[in-house]
C-alpha cells in the first residue's frame, strides 16, 4: 500500500490518509484481511508525526473500515460495507467537491448548471474508480 502525502495541501495529513485508505478499500484494491503498514513505518517513510498516523487509523477503526489485530497491527475489516454510512463515504469526496465548487464559481456557473452537467456522469457505469 503506497500512500501519497502532501504536507502543504489544505487538507490535514490525517484526512489525506483516511481518504486514501477509504478509497483503496472501497475500490477493492485492499480486500478484507489486508495488513496495513505499522504507524511507525508510515511515519518514518514520510517523515511525519506518528500521532497523525495513529489518529487516521483510529478514525478508520471507528468507522469500521479497519480492525486491530492483537499483536499484529491493523488490517482491513471484513464487514466494512455494512458499517460505512453514506455520510462518511461522502466525506472522502469533500476535497474534490471543494475544488469543483471553486472552479465553478470562477467560471461563473450556477448550481443548477453544475447539477445538470453532473447528473449524466453519475449514471455512467465506470469500469474503474478514478484515483489520483
Amino acid at each position, binding site marked *: 500500500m503506497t500512500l501519497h502525502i502532501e*504536507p*502543504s*495541501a*489544505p*487538507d*490535514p*495529513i*490525517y*484526512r489525506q490518509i483516511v481518504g486514501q485508505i477509504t478509497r483503496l478499500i472501497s475500490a477493492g484494491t485492499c480486500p478484507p484481511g489486508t495488513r496495513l503498514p505499522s504507524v511507525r513505518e508510515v*511515519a*518514518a517513510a*514520510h*517523515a*511525519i*508525526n*506518528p*500521532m*497523525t498516523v495513529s*489518529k487516521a487509523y483510529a478514525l478508520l477503526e471507528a468507522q469500521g473500515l479497519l480492525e486491530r489485530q492483537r499483536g499484529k497491527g491493523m488490517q482491513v475489516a471484513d464487514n466494512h460495507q455494512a458499517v460505512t454510512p453514506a455520510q462518511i463515504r461522502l466525506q472522502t469526496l469533500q*476535497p474534490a467537491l*471543494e475544488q469543483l465548487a*471553486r472552479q465553478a*464559481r470562477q467560471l461563473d456557473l450556477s448550481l443548477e448548471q453544475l447539477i445538470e452537467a453532473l447528473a449524466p456522469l453519475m449514471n455512467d457505469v465506470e469500469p474503474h474508480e478514478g484515483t489520483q
Partner: protein
Amino acid sequence: MNHLDPVVEALALTKRYKDHTALNDVSLSVAPGTVLGLLGRNGAGKSTLMECLLGLRSADNGQARLFGKPALQINDHDKAALGYVPQQTDSLLWMKVGDALTFFASLYPTWDSHLADSLLQRWNLDSKRLIQDLSPGQRQQVAIIRALAPRPRLLVLDEPAAALDPLVRREVLREIVELAAEHGSTVVFSTHILSDLERIASHVALMHEGRLRLYGELDQLKDELRRVRWPQHSTLPALPLPGEVARRPLAEGGWSLVLNLAQAEASTLPGQASTHSLSLEDLFVELAA
C-alpha cells in the same frame, strides 16, 4: 509536577530592545509531547521567544516558566533535561567532532551514545575532523546530535533546517518526531520551511511583529479555518465577526477574511461570500503580510 502540566509556558511576555518591541504580550502554554512549530517572518520575535522560554534572556514584563518554575531559576538538573540548537553554533571549534561529543556525553547522565554513533554514521560525519573544518550544515548536524543524544525532556531548535540539504533535513525531522513519539519529549522549533512544519508539528504558533497571531493544533486549524471572500458591494462590519482571525482589503475591491468555522455564524455572511479552504502558506500570507 503533574504529567499533564505544561512543560514550558509564556505568561504575558513582553521584551523590548531600545525602541523595538520584540515580544508584545505573548502567552502560550505547551503540553508534554507537543511538537510545536513556530512560524513568522524574520524579526517577528521567534528567536527572542525561544530564548526567553529557555531562561537565556529575561523579559521586561511577564514570565517564562519551564518545568513548572520560573525559567530564569532552573537548576542544573533541569538544564540537563534541555536540548537547544541555536541558529548558529560556534562552540568548541578547535575540537574534533568525536572528542566534542565525548565531552558532552560526560555532561549528560541520560546521553545515548548508541544514538550519537548511529547518527554520526548515517550522516557521514568524520569524528576525526575538527569542527572548524566542517561546513555550516555539518556543524549544524553536530549541534543537532548533541541536542538529541541526551534524550532531552524539552528540545528547542531555532531554524534547524536552514543549512541542511533536503535528505539530511528529512532525517532530522524523523529524529525529532521520534524523540517526541517514543520518549514523550516536547519539541519547539522555528522554521521558514512550511512543509517541514506540516509534516511533524502537532501544533503551530504564528508570530507577527512580536505578537502571537495564531496558536493551535495544526489539524484543527486546517479543518476549521477558512478564507472568505467578502464581496465589494456588501458592507463589512467594523467590529470583528464571530470567529474572525484576520481581514485585509483586496486590491480588486472587497475583503479577504479568515474565519474559524467552528465559531462563525453563517447569518453574518452576505449571500455572495465564498469560502475556501486554506493551506498553511495561505494562512501565513493572510496573517503575516
